[in-house]
């Protein structure tokens, strides 16, 4: 599913990139510190790039500069080979379009009236194009509805139609899905990706959701403190090593031992609700090859695995684990040298994650490591989960905290 | 902004209500403080001389000077511009009294106009200053008040001459204009058109000058008036008591058919003597009469009583 636009960078040698920054620096009037601090990057024409980074990293400012909205930057920023500051507003308007972070809250215009405004002269907006695009996005029913009465997802899709009507070469998006639920985020990006592929639009989007970034973008620019930490394909940028220092603080990395020898073995982690993050992180640090499952898409552990390119068995959001996925998961377990059962709440939906305890066909080579816990607190199945857990614990080595876990791991 | 516009609105509402209820016309608040001032006055005795008094209203100042007590007046308001000598006297405020200044003068009594200020007497009495409140709500009461002040101050002149003058004027007018009463629209401001109602002092002047205020049935001092009513009542005279352009008034829509306009009877008057209920009230009556009845003019000498 991942869009890989690496191919287009070959063409980039001939054609200038959509954006190329050299020592780009920006500082707000009257401030002492640079908000953008001498950065260099290039976004090839036709690529789908995400700009990620923690709050206050300078993402929005960078996008504003790319939009041409913030002028007076130092260094250079080329837009298709021309210095952006020298491109007129009219030319820019023809080349690029923008979706802001905020939706048009409380705007009492119908979608049609709003979309008409996508040209400075509304009479130039073709009605049939509006109809076509609404049709294509399956939102024709919104045509005569007031934006104020739409859901967040609907309003966003209308905004997407708005920018598509402008037929831009470049599309800049500032956190376009931040306020949407998972389903709407997905819907938005599916459409965007399709349009991107069909029209060859260059997309640069600020994203908070690293999963989305990893999943949909071919290129990721990670910035922090006004500097670019890393630019490249998602698997290069979005891993625990790079992200850890930015999002989770540098402390966790001080005892990392990168590159010491080969992979020590395969470990399958059964987790959920964020219980697996630390454990997976320690395992990666110790050069284990980690897999995970079964996780519902959207779960925080799912996001973490997605962001760190950890292979996993995925289930649709809010669905119970299917038979098919259960078997897949079992295969993962069987192929591992250890299975770690983390400390996570168990309901009817994910009970199947513990069912492997029944399956006595489990090879003896698989070590079971289990977090010690109070069953009653985590059991939302009325006893079924506790029964499984008791079985598992009998066979497992139990750890009480992360340090004990480390010792267990190292003893493997 | 929200705040300031609300303030503005409230303020305007208050203003309008004040205007409608006759805030500017002090004759309104009758009866208030009667007992208090009465008690205070009875306690006044001016055994020792020289007496030092303060006037807190222009009309009162005129009265004090008329009765010959001008030399006793040691404090007046900035609005007291008549007679000329009053202008040189120490000022104790305008519509608001500067009580510090007033107390500094240490007057034996403050002479005030009844109803001009809400709690002037109360405040002064609380400082131990005696007050004399003069009722100036009608022509008759002006004369009474003149006598009252003259009596208290043992002043050389009382109202007898004024009363005679007024009597002469009234009988002369009655003699000259037996069966005629001319209707008057008395405008004190043009946009919005404001006039005086039956409760006003000016209404008495109009009546005394053998005129009739077309709005004398409205029991108010001032009112923002309906021009339709003006046209319907078709006054014979329009009196403008401000610096109006008479041509502009004549050009008002619908005014061209008014008798007053057809006969070019739009007149401007000096508002000051009309609004000041003092000894010059007779001048105001005479002035208005002569404007309403130019054919039967009365000269000031004709009404001066023979000594």
């Amino acid at each position, binding site marked *: 599913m991942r869009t890989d636009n690496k191919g287009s960078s070959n063409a980039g040698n001939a054609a200038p990139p959509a954006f190329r920054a050299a020592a780009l620096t920006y500082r707000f009037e009257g401030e002492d510190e640079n908000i953008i601090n001498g950065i260099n990057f290039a976004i090839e024409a036709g690529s789908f790039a995400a700009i990620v980074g923690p709050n206050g990293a300078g993402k929005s400012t960078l996008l504003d500069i790319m939009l041409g909205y913030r002028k007076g930057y130092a260094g250079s920023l080329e837009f298709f080979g021309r210095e952006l500051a020298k491109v007129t507003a009219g030319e820019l308007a023809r080349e690029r379009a923008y979706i*802001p972070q905020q939706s048009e809250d409380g705007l009492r215009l119908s979608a049609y009236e709003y979309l008409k*405004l996508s040209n*400075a002269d509304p009479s130039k907006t073709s009605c049939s194009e509006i109809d076509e695009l609404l049709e294509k996005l399956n939102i024709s029913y919104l045509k005569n509805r007031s934006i104020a009465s739409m859901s967040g997802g609907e309003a966003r899709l209308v905004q997407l139609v708005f920018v598509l009507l402008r037929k831009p070469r470049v599309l800049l998006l500032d956190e376009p899905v931040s306020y949407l639920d998972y389903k709407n985020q997905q819907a938005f990006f599916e459409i965007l990706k399709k349009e991107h592929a069909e029209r060859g639009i260059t997309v640069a989007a600020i994203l908070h959701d690293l999963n989305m970034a990893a999943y949909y973008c071919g290129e990721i620019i990670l910035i922090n403190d006004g500097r670019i930490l890393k630019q490249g394909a998602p698997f290069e940028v979005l891993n625990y090593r790079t992200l850890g220092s930015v999002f989770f603080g540098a402390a966790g990395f001080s005892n990392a031992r990168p590159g010491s020898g080969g992979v020590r073995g395969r470990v399958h982690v059964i987790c959920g609700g964020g219980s697996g993050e630390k454990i997976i992180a320690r395992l990666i640090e110790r050069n284990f090859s980690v897999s995970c499952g079964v996780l519902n898409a959207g779960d925080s552990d799912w996001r973490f695995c997605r962001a760190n390119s950890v292979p996993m068995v995925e289930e649709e959001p809010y669905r119970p684990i299917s038979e098919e996925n259960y078997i897949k998961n079992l295969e993962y377990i069987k192929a591992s040298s250890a299975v770690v059962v983390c400390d996570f709440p168990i309901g009817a939906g994910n009970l199947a994650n513990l069912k492997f305890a029944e399956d006595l066909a489990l090879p003896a080579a698989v070590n079971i490591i289990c977090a010690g816990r109070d069953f009653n607190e985590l059991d939302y199945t009325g006893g079924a989960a506790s029964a499984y857990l008791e079985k598992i614990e009998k066979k497992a080595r139990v750890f009480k905290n992360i340090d004990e876990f480390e010792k267990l791991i190292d003893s493997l | 902004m929200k705040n300031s516009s609300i303030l503005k609105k409230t303020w305007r*509402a208050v203003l*309008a209500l*004040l*205007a409608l209820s006759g805030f500017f016309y002090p004759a309104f608040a009758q009866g208030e403080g009667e007992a208090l001032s009465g008690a205070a006055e009875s306690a006044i005795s001016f055994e020792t001389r020289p007496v030092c008094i303060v006037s807190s209203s222009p009309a009162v100042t005129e009265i004090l000077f008329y009765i010959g007590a001008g030399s006793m007046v040691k404090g007046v308001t900035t609005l007291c511009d008549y007679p000329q000598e009053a202008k040189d006297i120490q000022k104790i405020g305008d519509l608001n009294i500067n009580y510090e200044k007033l107390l500094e003068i240490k007057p034996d009594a403050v002479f005030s106009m009844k109803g001009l200020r809400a709690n002037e007497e109360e405040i002064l009495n609380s400082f131990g200053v005696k007050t004399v409140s003069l009722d100036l709500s009608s022509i008759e009461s002006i004369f009474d008040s003149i006598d009252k002040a003259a009596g208290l101050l043992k002043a050389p002149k009382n109202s007898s001459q004024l009363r005679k003058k007024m009597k002469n004027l009234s009988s002369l007018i009655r003699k000259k204009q037996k069966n005629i009463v001319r209707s008057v629209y008395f405008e004190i401001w043009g*946009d919005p058109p404001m006039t005086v109602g039956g409760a006003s002092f000016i209404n008495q002047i109009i009546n005394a000058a053998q005129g009739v205020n077309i709005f004398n049935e409205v029991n108010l001092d001032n*009112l*923002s008036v309906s021009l339709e009513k003006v046209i319907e009542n078709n006054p014979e005279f329009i009196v403008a008591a401000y610096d109006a352009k008479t041509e502009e008034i004549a050009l008002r829509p619908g005014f061209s058919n008014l008798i007053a306009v057809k006969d070019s009877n739009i007149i401007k008057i000096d508002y000051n003597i009309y609004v000041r209920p003092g000894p010059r009230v007779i001048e105001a009556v005479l002035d208005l009469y002569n404007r309403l009845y130019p054919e039967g003019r009365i000269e000031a000498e004709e009404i001066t009583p023979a000594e």
Partner: protein
Amino acid sequence: MTTDIRFKPYFYFITALSLCVAGAALSFSLGQAAIPPGEIAGFLMLKSQADGRYHAILKMRVLRMAAAFITGAGLAFAGVVYQSSLKNYLADPFMLGISAGAALFSALAITMKFHSSLAISAFAFTGAILSVGAVMAISYARKFSSYNLILTGIALNSFFSSFLTVVMYLSKDMQNIFFWLMGSLDVRYADQIIYTYLFVVGAACYILKYSHILDLLRINEKTVFSIGVDQNYYKIKFLVIASLICALIVSQTGIIGFVGLIVPHAARIMVGDSHRILLPFSFVLGGTMLIYCDLISRTAADSINFPIGIITSLVGAPFFIFLLAGQRKAGARANG
């Protein structure tokens, strides 16, 4: 709120126009003077005698009605333009100092014994233009933004208001200044009304031509920037024109508050934010509202005209609250 908003504008438009016509008819036939229906019919058929007394009164009613309509229409129209240009729904046409400037200068005129209503109007107009010009110049010299404009407007408003208080206090014409500030539709001359109509309608048509830009000013600033529209240019242009309309009206009628704030709001609730409809609708709605307010102010008490500004608040506020309450219910339904 119904989900389909297509039909609503026309429904409201027709309703407002019918109310306007009905209001005009009422306003024409009712007043302090009781006029026989025959006279009214005669006047309408242009058969009444020009020198008749009723003819004069009816003519006056027509002029007054015309003045009321253009006053309300102009203030409401300017209110919409102000709100959209400043991107602030609490903005009203008096936000940038027009009323305070007009009030101060009219007070100065009255103090200097210019008692002719045309002279006072000229002063008030000058004051309104000067103060709104000062607000714009000051905020332009700093950093032009709606926020800056509004702040400067508030500062200048209160400065002028305080200055006005000083002038009034020192002036011997305090009473007359009070009278002027109350606002009135009383004294109107036919040619004055014609010129006002020409200007206001002309300016309104000009802005209506750019209604889509006003739509744009209402949506996300950066989105509009990305389209290549110079927002500040249009903002200033619209504000200047709206201020001229407003200054012209205020200089003639004094300060009639509330219309410029609530009519645009009410209009938005009814027909939405599309200025192509919102602008003319507010125009009609504002004019209609003032015709009715004027009718009340003229007929509520014998011989007396209540100050029109009081009536606009008295009538407008409850109506507005009613609208807001209705909208809230509809909103809850849409969300639930």
